[in-house]
């Protein structure tokens, strides 16, 4: 096992000072004068907890306070932020959550909501107060095959939703690659898949929501009913209510055909990805790399007709190679650079491991992959998962994409010997209020583009400061280029004001204060 400590070159040259972080973490000066390092928020002091719990128990709300239970909720998928709730409640109904939030407002007890817990910056970690585990609300309520919608409890995992929909031959539109994410958590932050270039982010498939507001009102909202709340809660980072139920559009389930094109140049691959996204040339597309050497543009199709048109019209316009041609190029490249044999072997080994894992025979039928979301979701955990998930990202408008990703790639190279980039596009659904202060960059038109920068940590133990410094450098690109991020809450919330500017942040802060007077719902995520 290797241990890498913070390197002085890797960390910012700003000298650490004793300046305390301002109480308001999104204050304009929140990151000035302090070292480039985020830390866990202070734990809530527990004042009023017993009375709060007593009030809940009097109303038949179960609160688990055993240490064994609370400890299981100590961190999120990121594994860098650690906290401990005072107690945990398993969500069972909107009425129960309403009771909890009303009492929380009265007793000023923070309530932190957890779905799949796939946050990476501690957004779903409770630093004291009550942890509300939404996974208790994990059932599909009804499937409407005629109107092609599903109504589901919001704590459901995407995988479970898919499992139920599949019995009707249906599928959701778009979900994150990771199927242990919850529907509610995803709608609150965005949700990107390789079909997002065509179908948008997961949040855009919501037709209506049932929401419990921070003051405990249970409200239904949609584009026509209470649209303000609807727009505020979607991509709202859990600041304006708890999503308890969602009605979402669904589609017919189809096995898909996949093709891979290989690039040696990141720029070429990114430009071609943008071409395919812009021209709606594929049903699914994205880039997955091994370092910046083996760059794989993946395209997939729901129908033979779409596949045929792609090969007729678009294949010759993209520069990617088939596997044999690319293998030859790589062989030539490394023959001329024998001192890089280690890298060549790594690429070969990784390819050999990944290829069968992404094409398991039990998921293949007539040359098509069935349940590709399950295959991808599982392999994401197997090949990129770990106790620490370090995945800083950038979400940018079309014109800034190539530069932003090339700069991010250079940061990855500087910090880690092994890493992956995962890039795709996101179709926008017009100009929506929900996009303000969200993963959709303010200057994006029609499409946004994103990239996750994921180091392969392996058995090497990196210090938290080292990983944080890496993330900071990626996030600094966003500040410099005025982009956005898929994830900007939790430990990274100091970036919110820097990247978005004062106006939208002040506007949202005022809305938050009005909707959540005691500021108890999901504290430390954004506000």
């Amino acid at each position, binding site marked *: 096992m290797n241990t890498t400590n913070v390197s002085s070159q890797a960390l910012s040259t700003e000298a650490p000072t004793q300046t305390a972080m301002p109480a308001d973490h999104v204050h304009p000066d929140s990151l000035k004068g302090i070292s480039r390092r985020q830390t866990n928020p202070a734990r809530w002091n527990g004042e009023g907890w017993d009375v709060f719990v007593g009030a809940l128990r009097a109303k038949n709300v179960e609160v688990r306070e055993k240490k064994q239970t609370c*400890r299981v909720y100590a961190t999120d998928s990121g594994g860098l932020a650690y906290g401990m709730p005072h107690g945990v409640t398993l969500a069972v109904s909107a009425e129960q959550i309403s009771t909890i939030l009303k009492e929380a407002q009265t007793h000023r007890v923070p309530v932190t909501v957890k779905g799949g817990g796939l946050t990476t910056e501690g957004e779903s970690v409770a630093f004291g107060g009550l942890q509300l*585990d939404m996974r208790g609300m994990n059932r599909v309520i009804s499937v409407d095959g005629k109107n092609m919608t599903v109504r589901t409890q919001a704590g459901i995992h995407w995988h479970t939703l898919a499992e139920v929909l599949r019995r009707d031959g249906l599928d959701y539109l778009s979900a994150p690659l990771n199927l242990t994410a919850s529907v509610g958590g995803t709608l609150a932050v965005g949700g990107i898949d390789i079909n997002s270039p065509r179908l948008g982010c997961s949040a855009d498939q919501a037709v209506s929501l049932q929401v419990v507001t921070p003051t405990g009102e249970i409200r239904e909202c949609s584009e026509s009913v209470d649209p303000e709340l609807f727009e505020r809660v979607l991509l709202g980072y859990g600041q304006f209510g708890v999503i308890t139920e969602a009605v979402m559009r669904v589609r017919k389930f189809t096995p898909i055909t996949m093709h891979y094109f290989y690039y040696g140049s990141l720029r070429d691959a990114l430009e071609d990805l943008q071409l395919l996204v812009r021209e709606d040339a594929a049903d699914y597309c994205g880039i997955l790399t091994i370092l910046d050497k083996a760059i794989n543009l993946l395209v997939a199709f729901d129908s033979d007709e779409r596949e045929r048109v792609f090969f007729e019209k678009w294949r010759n316009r993209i520069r990617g190679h088939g596997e044999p041609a690319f293998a030859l190029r790589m062989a030539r490249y490394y023959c001329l650079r024998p001192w890089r044999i280690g890298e060549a072997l790594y690429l070969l080994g990784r390819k050999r491991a990944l290829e069968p894992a992404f094409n398991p025979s039990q998921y293949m039928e007539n040359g098509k992959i069935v349940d590709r979301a399950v295959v991808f979701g599982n392999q994401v955990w197997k090949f990129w998962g770990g106790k620490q998930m370090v995945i800083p990202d950038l979400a940018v408008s079309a014109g800034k994409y190539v530069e932003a990703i090339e700069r991010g790639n250079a940061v990855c190279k500087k910090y880690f010997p092994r890493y992956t980039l995962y890039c795709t596009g996101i179709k926008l659904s017009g100009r929506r209020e929900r996009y303000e202060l969200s993963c959709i960059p303010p200057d994006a038109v029609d499409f946004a583009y994103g990239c996750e920068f994921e180091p392969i940590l392996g058995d090497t133990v990196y210090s938290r400061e080292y990983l944080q410094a890496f993330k900071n450098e990626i996030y600094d690109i966003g500040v410099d280029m005025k982009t956005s991020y898929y994830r900007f809450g939790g430990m990274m919330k100091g970036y919110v004001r820097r990247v978005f500017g004062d106006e939208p942040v002040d506007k949202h802060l005022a809305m938050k204060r009005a909707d959540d007077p005691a500021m108890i719902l999901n504290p430390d995520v954004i506000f």
Partner: protein
Amino acid sequence: MTETGTELFNDKIKSGYENCTGCGVCMLTCPVWRQTRDIMLTTCGRTRALQNGDGPQDLRDSLTACVLCGSCGPVCPAGVDTVGLTTELRMELAEKTGPAPACHAPNVVHGKASGKVFFPGSAMRKDDRLLRRALRLLEPDGAGLYEDAEISDMAGKMEAGIRPDPEWFKDFVSSMAGAAEIIAADGFLHRHLRQWLPGVRVTGLGETLLRRPDIKKALKATDLYMIEARGYHADYGRLVNFYDRMRLETGCRLNTSLQRTAIPTGAANRQNRPGPVRVDAEEQARWILDKRKTDRVVAEAVEDMKIFKKMPGIEVIHVAELVN
């Protein structure tokens, strides 16, 4: 090597929990999770608790809730031996809380097994007609019935967390020296038999019968074929392809999930320790049947047949009843 001196379970098995990343993929296939939505009652909750320093006594409810179907094992990206872990923790729990009950076997001299032997398991032994039918199908292929009552008893106790008596274990292993293949209807035994008798081929009853062309031919596209979950997950890497081929060849449906694990009813669970949570086998059967148009359930496990017979309007048969 454990305190009992047997090599049934060892520290390597238990140490797997350290690798858990908390991804929660195991919960997606867990029948306990499906019915309770409570992470504390799942493998994921148990491994996280162990990582936090908790012990089996802190996990009593969780350990008793598990039906040991094993569906969490094949999907775990960290490769945690989930069934081994839970079994071992149950044994530790029994040792810490109960009267340290080693499973004393009666003074029975085992018959010497040779060639291909069939362990019908306790549920099938109680159904003489079905047992004879299965034997008629197995005997032409050279398999002989083995008096396995004692082994079934041992399996039940092990499932409840009682370690086998080392003396009995030694006797059993030596009595199996001549066996080339064991066909075991009780899927719980598969992983243990493979561990104890590394040179012996261990297969399930369903798999063995499905290798007969007449059985496979008798399956209809409208059948729902119920794979016995424990044996399937104990040899998932091989059997997932076996059953998938069978599905493609016959057109029948399987009780598999999106993860290609077998959805269990949990009816074979023999854990008899009291606990607050029990998987409702009928609820599992309703979920398996939900929106799956089928007029016949073909089950590998006798325990599953009993549950599906409670479902209205569906014919239920054992795989051994597919041909006369």
